[in-house]
């Protein structure tokens, strides 16, 4: 078996008594777009900074094409990086900024000029080479930073929340640019963000970070349909949680009781739930079907607390007898919504296979 393109192995980073990252294991394919997704302080940026060589790991290794990177200083790693903050060299023009890594490598003048022109074309900023960074918008500056980071054909490009300083519309525009540039250059990208929508839009695969460890690695649909932990379920997409009791468990599935009289059988189980223990049942708002009147099997009885019209969707807020809130999303014009009012008692049915139960 050939070695993976990029292999992060048992990475750990301690700051004094605080562990920022531990047990991070990850392989990345050549040309892959891998996103580190997680809240601030989850260790995603620390992992990226270790890759860049700005931090030394306490333990573990990083292998690129089978070679360890740890002993190589940052400036010899040949890795590209786009930072969260604007990092263009303020006293140099756009063209000189992009030329900088090439001049540092002592490339001949003609080659530098050709490459700068090619990079400006890649990020669609032809004609801007004589501008100073201060004369450019934030979005343009980050595109130049991208061009500079790609100018020396790095095997890996690191991006540390490069769009977080931009407004939403511009952010989406540049997300498209990044996707296009990824496809055109086929560079391997490691991208850090706390924005799940950005992660889903850009990535081939996502590593979800929580409290210094990777909770789960997978494609967007995999993480959404089959979250490994409650944290992943909460972080990717909308989710409802209801406290339940495990009646019986076996071969990865569990039968559950919610409140009194509501039983659900055959729910995929995560963690080890002994019969009689409490657990959290996770439901996706769009997987619930709302019916009025009597309750059947595999459904929850609830009281409607609010109804919100959101264009193509109607959002129904409800609560189960224990008081826990649920949200249900129904397409506009759905028959169950006509005449629905606050205080109505409804039954929320779902396919147990689409739900998940997380045991402590």
């Amino acid at each position: 078996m050939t070695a993976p393109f990029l292999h992060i192995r048992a990475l750990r980073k301690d700051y004094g008594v605080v562990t920022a990252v531990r047990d991070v294991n990850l392989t990345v394919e050549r040309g892959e777009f891998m996103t580190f997704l997680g809240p601030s302080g989850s260790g995603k940026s620390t992992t990226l900074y270790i890759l860049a060589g700005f931090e030394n790991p306490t333990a573990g290794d990083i292998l690129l094409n089978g070679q360890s990177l740890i002993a190589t200083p940052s400036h010899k790693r040949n890795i590209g990086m786009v930072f969260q903050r604007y990092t263009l060299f303020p006293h140099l023009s756009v063209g000189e900024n992009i030329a900088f890594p090439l001049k540092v490598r002592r490339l001949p003048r003609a080659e530098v000029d050709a490459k700068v022109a090619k990079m400006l074309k890649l990020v669609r900023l032809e004609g801007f080479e004589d501008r100073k960074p201060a004369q450019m918008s934030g979005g343009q500056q980050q595109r130049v930073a991208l061009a500079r980071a790609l100018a020396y054909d790095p095997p890996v490009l690191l991006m540390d929340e490069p769009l977080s300083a931009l407004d939403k519309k511009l952010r989406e525009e540049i997300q498209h640019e990044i996707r296009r540039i990824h496809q055109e250059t086929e560079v391997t990208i490691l991208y850090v963000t706390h924005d799940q929508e950005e992660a889903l839009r850009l990535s081939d695969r996502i590593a979800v970070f929580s409290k210094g460890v990777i909770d789960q690695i997978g494609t967007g649909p995999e993480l959404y349909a089959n979250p490994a932990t409650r944290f992943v379920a909460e972080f990717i997409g909308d989710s409802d949680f209801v406290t339940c009791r495990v009646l019986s468990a076996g071969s990865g599935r569990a039968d559950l009781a919610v409140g009194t009289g509501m039983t659900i059988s055959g729910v995929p189980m995560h963690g080890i739930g002994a019969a009689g223990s409490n657990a959290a049942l996770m439901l996706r708002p769009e997987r619930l079907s709302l019916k009025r009147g009597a309750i059947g099997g595999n459904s929850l009885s609830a009281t409607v607390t609010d109804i919100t019209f959101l264009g193509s969707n109607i959002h129904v807020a409800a609560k189960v007898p224990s008081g826990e809130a649920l949200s249900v999303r129904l397409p506009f014009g759905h028959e169950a919504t006509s005449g629905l009012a606050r205080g109505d008692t409804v039954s929320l049915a779902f396919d147990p296979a689409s739900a998940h139960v997380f045991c402590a």
Partner: protein
Amino acid sequence: MLLNFDRLGGWKWILIGITGLTAAFLILPIVFIAALSFGSSQWLIFPPPAWTLKWYEAFFADPRWLEAAGTSFSIAAMVTVLSVLIGLVASFGLVRGRFIGKEGLRALFLTPMILPVVVLAVALYAFFLRIGLNGTVTGFVIAHLVVALPFSILSITNALEGFDKSIEDAAVLCGASPLEAKLRITLPSISHGLFSAAVFSFLTSWDEVVLAIFMASPTLQTLPVKIWSTLRQDLTPVIAAASTLLIVVTIALMLLVALLRKGLKS
């Protein structure tokens, strides 16, 4: 706005009057000394009975004055170079370093600004007496360096704190060694701070008189020392000419700073 100049009405004129008086208070002595240096009276009579350039001729004809000016200039130049170099290294430590007692060290570096200069002068004099540095250029440079360094450290730490370290990190990832990144990216980005440090260091040494009196010997005198010692012997208008030249150099440097600041902004 609470204090809008256009809406002050009659108060406006009082404000203008106070401002004018303050400006006059600050500038008149300089105008006065400059006017006297062009006056024909031997006794510094004001207003001068007639105008002349003979005091300047006397200044440039006297090798002792020129020597003092040359000494002042070369000492100030050496102080400038050393002050910027040491200030730069110290600033990197104070801004980027992570060590216990950093704030205390920063305060220590700035103490020469608030310490009475005469105390410093006596202390240095006593110390240099032991190691034989009084009356030497080295002694002069060290003494002036002590008072110039705080200005240098203040301007450079300010500039360095305003410079995002990520920019230097970006240069390093681009393939520049940490030293190369500092030389090619960080230093040009904080050049305004380095320039202010150089100008203030130069001026601190250029017009410093207290330390200089202690350090001077009959054969080694800076321009302010020469002015002071001449003043004690006889009251010649050449002193006014020398003082005016001293001020002209200072003003020229301040103008240069202002112009460069303006150039940086546009």
